[in-house]
């Protein structure tokens, strides 16, 4: 049993609330990612689970036991830090076995566990080196090895890939996923990188300003964001937000973006939004991949409009196009062969089946 529960957890620094009442249940074997911008309280939450920060209010439970006042060493957790935090005067093997040696494990078992972890992480050749002689990626492996040999109830990762270059980050991301598939230990992982969150997590917890915005699987967050913050945070390039309003034209519900551009809503969407007051200030949320080039055979719910592109960014497999709708910058993704050119007019298609409608004041997705 190694589920983790947070009940109304609050962290106050003097008169500033860094974490404002968090409720979270993490199941055994689950890989949970806490994601959010800097200062959203995600690292503080992790450190409270680790016991490195006291909690100001609420309860934290590991394996069913309240651990509020239990020191880190007695919580049976292992943590991987952003800057590795390896002991510079110890070799890789000594670093990895430090926790076990403190607990007076038999030497043979320590050796077996270190050898096994080193094999798992592919660092067997480095076992006698000092951290200084290792590259960033190797150091991060050792830090993970130090966590694995302990065989703890919970793994805690605090932005472990932030110090690595982009290529290595992708590689290590896959390594972390592989390791989790093998050891299946409950994992709480903190990152500000939404790609890491989406690729690693069983469930993602999006945090903002000390609160949880939404908890869900990566797919749920992507396709059914609960708030404007989540909608804008998950996905790259970010979702477009275009001010709009609803109107009834000839008995049909339509969405008006500009004086010139208005689209009839597809039946499913129309039914969903029909009850909304017509004069509310609303925002249309549409992801760039649902703004593509227009072509001859468009399905139902896909509407086209003419615009003048400001800038295009050819990415190879796709081209990002940027344009303005009454001063609101908008980004679309078109086929590289669609003939998009800087400053040229282009006919684009908007897939309204994948639209989101948000309340401008509350930011809630309707």
């Amino acid at each position: 049993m190694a589920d983790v529960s947070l009940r109304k957890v609050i962290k106050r620094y003097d008169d500033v609330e860094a974490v404002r009442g968090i409720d979270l249940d993490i199941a055994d074997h689950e890989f949970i990612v806490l994601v959010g911008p800097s200062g959203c309280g995600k690292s503080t939450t992790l450190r409270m689970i680790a016991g490195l920060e006291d909690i100001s209010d609420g309860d934290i439970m590991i394996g069913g036991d309240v651990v509020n006042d239990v020191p880190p060493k007695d919580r049976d957790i292992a943590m991987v830090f952003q800057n590795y935090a390896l002991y510079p005067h110890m070799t890789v093997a000594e670093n990895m076995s430090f926790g076990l040696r403190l607990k007076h494990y038999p030497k043979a078992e320590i050796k077996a566990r270190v050898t096994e972890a080193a094999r798992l992480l592919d660092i067997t050749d480095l076992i006698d080196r000092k951290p200084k002689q290792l590259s960033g990626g190797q150091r991060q492996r050792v830090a993970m090895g130090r966590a694995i040999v302990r065989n703890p109830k919970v793994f805690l990762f605090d932005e472990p890939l932030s110090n690595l270059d982009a290529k290595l980050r992708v590689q290590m991301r896959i390594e972390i996923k592989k390791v989790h598939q093998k050891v299946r230990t409950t994992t709480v992982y903190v990152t500000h990188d939404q790609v890491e969150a989406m690729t690693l997590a069983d469930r993602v917890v999006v945090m903002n300003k000390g609160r949880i915005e939404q908890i869900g699987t990566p797919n749920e967050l992507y396709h059914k964001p609960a708030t404007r913050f989540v909608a804008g945070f998950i996905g790259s390039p970010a979702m477009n937000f275009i001010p709009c309003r609803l109107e009834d034209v000839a008995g049909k519900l339509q969405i008006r973006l500009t004086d010139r551009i208005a689209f009839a809503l597809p039946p499913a969407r129309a039914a969903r939004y029909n009850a909304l007051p017509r004069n509310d200030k609303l925002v249309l949320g549409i992801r760039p991949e649902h703004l593509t080039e227009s072509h001859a055979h468009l399905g139902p719910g896909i509407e086209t409009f003419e615009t003048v592109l400001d800038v295009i960014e050819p990415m190879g497999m796709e081209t990002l196009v940027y344009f303005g709708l009454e001063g609101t910058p908008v980004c679309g993704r078109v086929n590289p062969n669609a003939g998009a050119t800087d400053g040229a007019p282009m006919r684009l298609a908007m897939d309204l089946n994948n639209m989101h409608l948000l309340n401008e004041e509350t930011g809630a997705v309707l």
Partner: protein
Amino acid sequence: MAEVVVQQGRVARTGTRKRGSLRNALGRKSTVAFFLTLPLILLIVLLVLYPAFYSVYLATLNKAMTKFVGLGNFTFLFKRETFWMVVKQSCIFAITAVVFKALIGFIVAHFVHNIPGKKQRKWRGMLLVPWVIPPAMSTLAWLWLFDPSYSAFNYTLSFFGVGPIPWLGDTFWARFSVILVNVWYGAPFFLIMYLAALKSVPDQLYEAAAIDGANWWQRIWYVTLPMMRNIIAITTLFSLIVTFANFDIVRILTSGGPLDTTHLFATWAFQVGIQSSDIPLGACVSLFMVPILAVAAIFILRDVTKRGNEA
């Protein structure tokens, strides 16, 4: 500056051959570096090397400095009981004082390190005071504190029915007092060095150790001490040298008494050489510090460079 000279060197190649080679020599970076460090080299030769060799020369003369006696002064010293007493006392004084200075510095540095922000600066400033007052002056204050009949110490102790203690009149207490004042004066140096070393240990190492299951004592033993090894070694060596060569504290408090039992190499060399006008013998005494300190230096600095590569 080096740039200019180098360029002049290049231009000069068109001139006559002899002048050219001189200019070329000036143009080499190593030559420039030598000339730039020459003032310092001259100072060291004048103030360190010359006196050192001169004292070796002096140590080989007779009392009137008229005749070369070779190692005569040394063999004479070896036969004197006072000399061996001074050797013993210097070692006791330096080792005891350095151990206590290091211990107190380490403990206080931990306390100061844990004081938050602004308050820490105040404490740091106050704790440095003993070290910044000229020791000759502060030792005078201690001299009054140690006075047998009118001092604050004995007055205070009298309330508890203790004393009066002959602070500077009894061999044990005189040695104790001299070491006490040296510790009081030198501990802030250790404090400030250790504090700097403590600040350079990343917090995350302690957090990692805490999660690995290390208690407070194990964190100090397995993280703090290994991370501070180099600073501890260098600070200890430096302090050992300075403490071994101490002069002013003993000179002011006891002048080596009672019955020479607090003499150190420096104070005894002064008494023998200057006060008893046997300069060659005084020089001979002071030379004895060299081999003892050299051995200590080799032991302490044995693998500082090796460890330096780890951090």
